[in-house]
């Protein structure tokens, strides 16, 4: 079992209901697979067509393999001014 720790920002935090999320999987995931799994599990996350996943302070391209110790963050757009 692998556990990924994900920091949630903005509306992602509202949708999930907490600012950190622990996500358990059987096998290692790529960044895009984790994002897809989260978006499938939380339908309102799935409605965000553009959602930024950061892996170790870098905008993930989607195909990078994730390590349990990676610093992950889910960053939706915000529009306030």
């Amino acid at each position, binding site marked *: 079992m692998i556990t990924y720790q994900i920091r949630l*920002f*903005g*509306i992602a935090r509202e949708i999930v209901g907490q*600012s950190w999320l622990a996500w358990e999987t059987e096998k290692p995931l790529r960044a895009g697979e984790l994002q897809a799994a989260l978006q499938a599990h939380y339908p*309102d996350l*799935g*409605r*965000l*067509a*553009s959602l*930024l996943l*950061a892996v170790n*302070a*870098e*905008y993930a391209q989607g195909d990078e393999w994730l390590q349990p110790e990676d610093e992950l*963050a889910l*960053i*939706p*757009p*915000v*529009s*306030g*001014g």
Partner: protein
Amino acid sequence: MENITFSKAELERYSRHLIIPEFNIEGQRKLKAARVLVVGSGGLGSPLLLYLAAAGVGTLGIVDFDVVDESNLQRQVLFGREDVGRPKVEAARDRLQSLNPHIQILTYNTPLTSDNALDIIKDFDVVADGTDNFPTRYLVNDACVLLDKPNVYASIFRFEGQASVFNFRNAKGEPGPNYRDLYPTPPPPDLVPSCAEGGVIGVLPGIMGSLQANEVIKVITGVGEPLSGRFFLFDAASFETRILKIRRNPKNPLNGEHPTQTGLIDYQDFCGVGQADESPQGQVKSITVQELQKLRESQADFQLIDVREPYEYEIAHLQGDLMPLGQLDAHLDKISSSKQVVVHCRSGKRSAEAIRHLEQKYGFANLYNLEGGILAWADQIDPSLAKY
């Protein structure tokens, strides 16, 4: 630049800039020669305008259509009680001109729209985006990319702030990432609230707008390293900061490897704002999603045309023939003039526009607009389809 000179009063006013070795009178000259447009004079716009005026930016443009409201004063430090009810651009001009009479203030008391954005922005060197809604964020970004202007960006929500310098050309002349590289498409309008709906801690726009002002000054003077190719995140509640490395996306519809968008679009429609409450679908023939479903089931010989952008098609589609609205004329030979043709987009607005265009310019009489677009299809026919 040598023809930019300063009066004694100006030299005294700017003396704390002039004695910074790497800034000096050269930096001050560049500020005085610069033209900066601030879009939105609200929470972010307040510190932006105050600091840019104080710093001596020679020409400041302000776009805002709003009037000062009592609820603005919690964070919009540009305004005072006596300004409540006044147009923001007028109150801002008076305040800034009293702060610094040596600069020129240009006001645009209008919403920034696809019709006026290029005209207004083209005469400025740098744009600072302090707007409060997604349609205008995408509009400002796209206009800056099309006009090749740096876009100094910040945005806020409750305790969180984001900032970056978009579309900034480095010393080699290569453009940096822009907003569309990060967020190609907007969220559904009901999902991400604005400050008015979601709230914001008053000091946060003060922090983020001040960072923006600092980036504007760096972009103009060339002093320091602008926040280009990087994305700054701040959580004021936990005091966490992050700086993410960001890159250009080859699929960017404006300046990726295969650009599909060569002009401004309808950003209200793009962001799904105000659909269904207006009647832009009037005057063209239309069919409902239920009627389209029957057409499909009956194996009728008809054509389905999708006038959205390819990156929207990627999110969800109905297997229609993709012909983006802006490129319709190039696809004329692929549009049937004999059988029934159903045209759709996201909400039904762009497809109505497409039909009006094809009817008026080429005399088509066989075109039907899909009411409510692919969103209605997702709502009423196929709930597994992604709504965006």
